[in-house]
């Protein structure tokens, strides 16, 4: 019994990481209907940025994250403003193919800059710290922080959406980009800011990814797929849905891994496909699209 409870707890905590992967993807799809095939590679890029800041300035991982946040915001802003804005329109091919091209560029660029070796962000003793829950159950401090951060990020983004003028502009642009321009909203700038914010969340995701496990330039596409699965399971347009989607994916993977370690990823995919067949619009779809 405790075994299954433990699986459920560990899976839920893993889901926090997947939710962090997914929030950025969900955010930019919600605002500009852009599906970014380079999203996973941008997570890995952020992890390498944090690593590079740590090694070149000799700072600890948290300080490196703080420095990396504005850097990643700028990366997202410029990427969107200069290039991706040109691809938006009725045709879905240009954004898909351009971001696919970026995926390949980022992967190989990182390999050129950092080699194909596995890396890790070291956070000291907290990496292995855990809290005993009694009954032989324990949760790691870092996994717990990951989940709490995901929840915190969602609260912060919802506050932005519903309380700030910028958030209203995001929602208005998402509803009707043409009319939004008549409100003095510069779509190009709004989209660039949205991508910048998505990259901030991405950097936070990369921070937890890099502390939790090894990473190398090739692991981006798999992160994109987890993020995508979490978004679809949760239903488009709802960040809380995305969190639930991440948790379902995390639990499914943990159950799979428990049965046979080689089945971890497959179990997650199967859970995704089953939910897609049963609930094509996800568990918590937005009322209108």
């Amino acid at each position, binding site marked *: 019994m405790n075994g299954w409870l433990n699986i459920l707890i560990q899976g839920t905590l893993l889901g926090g990481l997947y939710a962090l992967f997914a929030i950025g993807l969900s955010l930019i799809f919600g605002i500009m209907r852009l599906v970014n095939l380079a999203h996973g590679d941008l997570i890995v890029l952020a992890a390498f940025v944090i690593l590079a800041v740590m090694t070149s300035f000799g700072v600890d991982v948290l300080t490196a994250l703080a420095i990396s946040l504005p850097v990643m915001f700028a990366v997202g802003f410029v990427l969107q403003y200069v290039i991706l804005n040109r691809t938006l329109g009725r045709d879905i091919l240009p954004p898909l193919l351009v971001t696919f091209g970026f995926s390949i560029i980022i992967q190989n660029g990182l390999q050129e800059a950092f080699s194909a070796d596995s890396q890790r962000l070291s956070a000291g003793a907290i990496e292995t710290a855990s809290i005993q829950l009694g009954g032989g159950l324990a949760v790691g401090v870092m996994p717990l922080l990951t989940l709490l951060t995901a929840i915190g990020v969602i609260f912060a983004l919802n506050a932005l959406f519903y309380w700030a003028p910028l958030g*209203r502009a995001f929602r208005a642009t998402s509803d009707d980009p043409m009319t939004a321009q008549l409100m003095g909203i510069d779509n190009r700038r709004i989209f660039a800011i949205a991508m910048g914010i998505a990259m901030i969340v991405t950097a936070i995701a990369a921070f937890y990814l890099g502390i939790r496990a090894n990473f190398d330039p090739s692991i981006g596409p798999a992160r994109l797929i987890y993020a995508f699965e979490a978004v679809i399971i949760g239903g488009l347009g709802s960040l809380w849905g995305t969190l639930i989607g991440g948790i379902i994916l995390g639990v499914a993977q943990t159950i799979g891994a428990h049965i046979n370690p080689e089945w971890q990823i497959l179990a997650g995919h199967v859970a995704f496909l089953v939910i897609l067949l049963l609930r094509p619009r996800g568990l918590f779809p937005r009322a*209108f699209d």
Partner: protein
Amino acid sequence: MSLLETRDLTAHYRDFQALFGVNTRLEEGDTLAVIGANGAGKSTYLRSITGLLPGAPWSIVFNGEPIGHLPAAEIMKRGIALVPEGRRLFPSLTVEENLQVGAYGRTGDGAWNIAGIYSLFPRLKERRHQASTTLSGGEQQMVAIGRALMSNPRVLLCDEISLGLAPIIIRDIYQALPRIKATGTSVVIVEQDIQQAMKVADRLYCFQKGRISLAGSPAAFSRDEIHHAYFGTRQ
């Protein structure tokens, strides 16, 4: 100098030419009515002015400056706001948020704010936290007008604000116009409904197949003259 002028304004949708050299003038504080049948080019005229359809710089002159080439957001910031045809409220925003977003690009220094809009259209205050999609057509039109006013524009453009509304609602909405004009805002009303437009206008333009078929003071024309300019029948 006129506040807003179009000079030989032309407009195209790919191969299709919608406007063929349109000249209009709007003086500060005036109300201008633009009438015409479906497809006469009225909406294209507004799309050009608001920057949704960019053109040559000097084809549209606002306050002495060329704006024909500017993007929509920039033109709005200079003080031209549009009440779009079909209202185009933001469905995921509440009534009050729709009004607030109207002031995103510009607040201006005029009298219009949330409280001002609610005193102009008291019914909106009761519905301030409802989703804009739950409102009646007339109420939605009030939100659309209020949203445009929130930026305290120097020129308010109204595209077919009576379309699809009951006559009694249309009357309510047109009753707001004098108060809007009283704040010094110049107004351009585009309508298919000739009667309403004529009542409030200082100056009238009739569009026909992308050209101006009649221009002048509404009082100067007979019913027949307007009828012919509108439908293009020969006298």
